[in-house]
């Protein structure tokens, strides 16, 4: 779990240095943490021989965080909806939902092996909102 804590801390720092407010920093760091947890737990299946990698970038227009695992790969279409009535009492399955709720963009890329999850938080309103 040290790597998960490191990812969370790095995301928190990235968001704070970008000038995001407390709530936004929480959202970004939590999304990054959930992505790292997914990579360790579901991607690498807790295999100590496998690693996760994380990159953090402030492009000026957005914060871009990419987290990759070395696992079998994940098809996001197979993730059940945690808000569906039949899934509400499941003990897991809310991580990706939280990531999508807190970030502006979420992208999955299959690495063969592994999956890379890129999450993006815009720093300025999108042009089509003005």
């Amino acid at each position, binding site marked *: 779990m040290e790597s*998960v804590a490191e990812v969370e801390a790095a995301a928190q720092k990235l968001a704070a240095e970008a000038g995001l407010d407390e709530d936004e920093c929480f959202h970004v760091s939590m999304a990054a943490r959930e992505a790292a947890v997914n990579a360790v737990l579901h991607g690498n299946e807790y295999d100590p021989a496998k690693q996760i990698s994380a990159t953090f970038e402030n492009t000026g227009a957005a914060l871009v965080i990419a987290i990759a695992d070395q696992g079998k790969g994940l098809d996001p279409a197979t993730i059940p909806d945690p808000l569906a009535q039949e899934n509400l*009492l499941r*003990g897991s399955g809310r991580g990706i939902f939280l990531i999508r709720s807190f970030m502006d963009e979420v992208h999955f890329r299959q690495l063969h092996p592994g999956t890379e999850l890129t999450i993006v938080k815009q720093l300025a309103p999108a042009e089509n909102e003005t």
Partner: protein
Amino acid sequence: MALTIASREVDGVTVLDLGGRITLGEGSVQLRDAIRSLISKGKKSILLNMGNVNYIDSSGLGELVSAFTTAKNQQAEVKLLSLTKKVHDLLQLTKLYTVFDIQDDEAGAIASFK
């Protein structure tokens, strides 16, 4: 900050005063073990005082749900007390606010078990 758990009894209700983070790993395991221990001892009324829980991740949410269902299957009840804003917002976002009995004050929470 790891999760701290302190237990006390009030009018037949076991109150677990939680503090810190309920997250994947130590925190969520501690909570799971504490609740299962209480249920195995025959405790039927468990109140989780969340007033000092400043962070919960999806694994922590999962443990709360597991606690709820484990208790229900054993004819016991788990209720939540004094959610912080962050935890409250997460429970609303994930619709878990509709699952749990959430109380704002301890006296009312204790009385609600009767």
